[in-house]
């Protein structure tokens, strides 16, 4: 039984940009499993490993939250519309440039790697001067303002002096 499924923009990278797709099944979980067949990777964005819908995603059958029907076992019928609505918070990415001045003891630590690994930011080194004694790096950090702030705090906690590059001298 085909139903229409509304895909929110964050998940459209998995549906080739399509906003509304068709899926078959008689319950919500069957619909989600059918979606996964056609759009690999979509299920893990919606469901936990035990198939329950993630706490920051809601699935609506027509305009009713499935949590108030029969959750993933809610029955669907021909012509129904299923909407996937994730929690969104806003936040546009920003790029900020900084000079990082390393203390000697931190030069050998992979701090920039750790920044990229631990925080939701993209780092890009624009110029650097590194020897055994000094380490000065001009870096671009892209991400949400709060993530950038955390990345900066982390670097500072490791003894690195972080100075914003005010004028665009790197470009």
């Amino acid at each position, binding site marked *: 039984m085909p139903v229409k499924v*509304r895909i*929110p*923009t*964050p998940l459209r*990278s998995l549906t080739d940009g399509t*906003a*509304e797709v068709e899926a078959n099944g008689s319950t919500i979980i069957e619909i989600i499993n059918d979606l996964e067949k056609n759009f690999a990777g979509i299920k893990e964005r919606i469901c936990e490993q035990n198939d329950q819908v*993630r*706490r*920051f995603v*809601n699935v*609506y059958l027509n*305009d*009713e*939250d499935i*949590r*108030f029907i029969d959750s993933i076992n809610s029955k669907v019928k021909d012509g129904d519309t299923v*909407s996937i*609505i994730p*929690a*969104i*918070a*806003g*936040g*546009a*990415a*920003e*790029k900020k440039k900084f000079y990082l001045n390393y203390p000697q003891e931190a030069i050998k630590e992979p701090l920039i790697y750790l920044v990229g690994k*631990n*925080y*939701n*930011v*993209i780092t890009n080194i624009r110029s650097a001067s590194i020897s055994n004694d000094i380490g000065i790096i001009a870096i671009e950090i*892209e*991400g*949400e*303002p*709060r*993530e950038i702030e*955390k990345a900066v705090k*982390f670097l500072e906690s490791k003894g690195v002096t972080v100075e914003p590059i005010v004028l665009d001298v790197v470009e």
Partner: protein
Amino acid sequence: MEFTEEQIKRYARHIILPEVGGEGQTKLLSSKVLLIGAGGLGAPCGYYLGAAGIGTLGIVDFDTVDLSNLQRQIWHGTADVGRYKVDSAKDSIARINPDVNVVTYKDKISSENIKDLIKDYDVIIDATDNFPTRYLINDACYFMKKPLVYGSIFRFDGQATVFLPEEGPCYRCLFPAPPPPGLVPSCQEAGVLGVLPGVIGAIQANEAIKIILGVGTTLNGRLLIYDALDMKFSEMKLKADRTCPLCGESPSVFDLIDYEDFCEFRRED
């Protein structure tokens, strides 16, 4: 309240509406609205609230204006880059309407200060851009019984609703807990269409004004979903959740939580 000649002219298009009238305009002029966030959602929302003659408009934002903000944060101009957003916002409102008493807060909102910030206001507007602050605002508004006008945007998607603590539901009924850091979309997927916060922010202003006037039907109990790419508005039912950790039958949230701290623990281990 006696209107001045100038006020009668300024608010004529409001006063002539039976749903507003002189009485409604007086309500607006004596109301206090707190706008949390002076960015994409805050700018259109605050502009309309200022123009409508909200008596006291509090604006909270610790950030400064960046050139990359101007694509959507329409109350800041190129010359404002580097200034505090709240200062730029205050100037913009003063240009439109000198009746409005704009109170600015350059504070970072936290569990320490939020109750003090919201306590004197009639309506709170969530125009923020991150999950930790949204949960903090929701919980504080629930504890202090303040109506909360919620709006949120991401890329081309917008959401808006109204949470009334006396009646429910709350934001945690909608989404019980914030997503763990690793599961929020990465910044490569982020970005936002500049007009989108304009649409949602204006809806938030509309709802705040209706709450103050006591007219019409607010979005309480309904989640408005806006898809700017497909140009579709849809509406989902939003019910109070009996299992809600905040306002449900056996709550587990009794205090304000600074979620950011949690995340930092997780990330540095």
